[in-house]
């Protein structure tokens, strides 16, 4: 039972209620523009933001909670975790601050407390604590226009396709988050192209962890293969030396 958020860009009025609710629930402080902020409104203190595009299109940006998250696959200490309920959550007690998750995120979501001496990674956790209590995330609850709604991923996908079907002139015929990088738990339907939210631009894309899979699978082969090659080489050379009558067992005593 994977949960998800569906945002209908055509319905959003850009009131920022979701952002405010997010800040309240997650105890985020007031934010000020910093040199290290990206230009998308997200920061260590803003886990969601609203971007205004082409006049009156308001696009909410937040962690996409990928079905096969790159950040989770690369974290060397497993500080990031994809929960059964769908949220990708962060354990600050495990984190060692390598920032690999920030590098690999296809949507450029995780932020860092650059100004702190004890910095952590900051990103939306889909209000995991609220989900466990059976509530919905603060942002979807706060939305006055029901532009962003919460529910089962399958049901929301159906709803998204239904809305597009009923109003094909209004929407771009695509549900963002359905297939990109293997699918995400945050879905969008929109009347404008939303590719700017992502580094990926192809609608159907391989989950990023699969990119490293061949190399990671080759690890034992490379390890023992190199060991085998070296042993073989040394055996052949030693034998050849022995055959040509050289005393080859001297090096242990003379060269240490």
């Amino acid at each position, binding site marked *: 039972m994977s949960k998800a958020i569906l945002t209908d860009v055509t319905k959003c009025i850009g009131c920022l209620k979701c952002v405010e609710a997010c800040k309240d629930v997650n105890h985020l402080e007031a934010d000020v523009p910093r040199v290290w902020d990206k230009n998308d409104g997200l920061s260590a203190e803003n886990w969601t933001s609203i971007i205004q595009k082409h006049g009156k299109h308001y696009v909410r940006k937040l962690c996409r909670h990928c079905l096969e998250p790159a950040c989770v696959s*690369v974290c060397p200490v497993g500080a990031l975790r994809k929960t059964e309920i769908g949220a990708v959550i962060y354990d600050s007690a495990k984190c060692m601050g390598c920032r690999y998750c920030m*590098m690999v995120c296809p949507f450029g979501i995780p932020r860092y407390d650059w100004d702190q001496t004890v910095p952590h990674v900051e990103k939306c956790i889909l209000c995991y604590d609220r989900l466990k209590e059976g509530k919905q995330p603060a942002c979807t609850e706060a939305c006055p226009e029901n532009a962003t709604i919460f529910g089962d991923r399958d049901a929301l996908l159906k709803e998204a396709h239904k809305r597009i079907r009923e109003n094909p002139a209004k929407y771009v015929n695509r549900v963002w988050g359905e297939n990109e990088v293997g699918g995400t738990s945050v879905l969008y339907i929109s009347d404008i192209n939303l590719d700017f939210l992502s580094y990926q631009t192809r609608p159907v894309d391989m989950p990023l962890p699969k990119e490293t899979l061949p190399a990671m699978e080759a690890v034992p082969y490379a390890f023992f293969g190199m060991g085998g090659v070296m042993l073989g080489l*040394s055996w052949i050379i030693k034998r050849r030396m022995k055959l040509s009558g050289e005393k080859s067992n001297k090096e242990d005593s003379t060269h240490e």
Partner: protein
Amino acid sequence: MNRVHNTKIVLWLITGLAAAIALNRFVFGLGATTNLNDEVPWGFWIGFKLSWVALSAGGFVIGAIFYMMKREKFHSLVRIAILTAFLGYSAFIVSLIFDLGLPWNIWHMIIYWNPNSPLFEVGWCVMLYTTVLVLEFLPVPLENTSRYATVRAFLQKFRFPIVLLGIMLSTLHQSSLGTLFLIMPRRLFPLFYSHIIPIEFFISAIAGGLLMLAFETLALHWMYRRTLETDLVHVLCSVSVWILGLYFLVKIGDVALEGKLGLLLDGSWMSYLYIVEMLLTTVIPFVMFVMPKWCANRRVQWIGTSIGIVGVVLNRIDIGGFAMRDATLWYTPSWMEVVLSVGILSTAALVFLFIIETFHVWDIQPRDPEALSHTPPFFDRVSGTWLGSPKTSALTRHTLAFVISFAVGMALISGKRLHAEGIENVTVRPASGIDTLCINGNRDSQFVEFPHQAHIGWMRSGRISSVTIDSLHYVLGAGADSCIVCHHLDVPGEKLSNCWECHTSMYSEVDFFRHDWHASASGANLKCDDCHTPGETRTGRTARKCTACHPSYTFADTAGYGPNAYYIPSYVDAMHKLCVSCHTIESRVIKDKPNLALCSTCHRTGTPPGLRAGMKWDVSLPRFDNVVLPTPVRGIR
């Protein structure tokens, strides 16, 4: 001139500078020390550091050549290669302590496992390989003491498996450092991204390791003024030629097979970076070393090895940071990043020099020329004082170098915690005492008092008619019944001004006084002398007061101010922080008020009913693309 001492002084100077910056890093954090940001979380540090690992590859390559392939002539390089590798990896680990956000958690990798992560694999390999290197090198410091003879004998007995394990681990992590970047196919610039980065990293590490050893040998001979084992450097260079050639073929072949040759020649910044990198890493050293005559020339060896090393370093820095999407737009390394990295290297170099002078690492143990017993006492050139025995005087000078550059470093770092920059928030104080609200609209701490009960009384008595949802549109249109009656200056002749005509900026406070409008023919059409006294410097302070022309300006305490004093909040602040803030509280108590806290009350799509002809509805929206809306301040009171 004593090359050894001068080199050491320089190294101590850099180390001292870096020590100050290391302090800055831990006291004030990463943001205060580096230019890393959310767009470029990995930068110069990671890339430079990766190159140290690559240049340390000599340790396992020489191990393989000497122990596995039994090439006896590399014997004199074995210990120095292992020492280089050990110090390279140690420097890598030390620099991680500065680079990681939470370095005290670095050991978490031992207990929290995530075998899917390439970084996890690299981490374990580096830990194990550093241990292997310690075991490989340990017999050297132990050989002078008979006390540890058993330990030494034990280590030598297992030398072959230890070296073999070292080779296996190195193969793994030299390539896995490339695997780190496989997961960023769209983030790394296409020219630099390849599915065989691990293989490219492995090959370039072997070449880099060999070149580094050749360079080291040259440098040590230069420093200690010893005749050069030209033969060995020659051999190293000529071996590396084949690896450089292979690397070139793999790189270019990969680019060609992936169909990216067009990108190579498109004249973009990245293509130039790639071409320069290829020239430095492969083409120039290859051409220099491929001809036997040149390869034996010592000057060519110096230049060729240096260029090759710079190339490998550049390659790692590119992939670790510069070739990332938009990185050049967002990131240039700060001087502190560079100095700290170089400082860690100089510390490693000092340790290296100490070890080769103390233990039998080289075939001949070099002596510090000034530390020899027959050296005459050294007198300071300036003061003419004796600085003590050569050893003491060296210690004095090194300490002095360190302390001075540490002090310089402390002076250079700003030593300031990064504080909030940008737009200040308007402080709106909640009613304190009875019901008076203090509004700091001008942000000059001169609060405007807002007696709320009195306003309610005025509204009841008809002085202000009650505001209904429909008439809210007057807020935008500045109708007679709007807030503007109380809250705004009475702009002469323009009672129907739109908010944005004064609050011209969406996000930052502006000067209400529009100088250009006053001076222009289509505006007030005033001459300079109408406001500024002739002969005096024309500034806002010396100009006539606004009230001289506009006696109806009744804003509190403005009589004494010139035009510059009329700062007004941004549009967003005016609407959200002043109006909405109060109404958020009010809406909980009084039900018949318009719920301004509900954004959709104002922000509606379509034309609102009752919008009069000629009025603009779109006033509240900025008219440029891709705007990030400012986030509300948490906990509006």
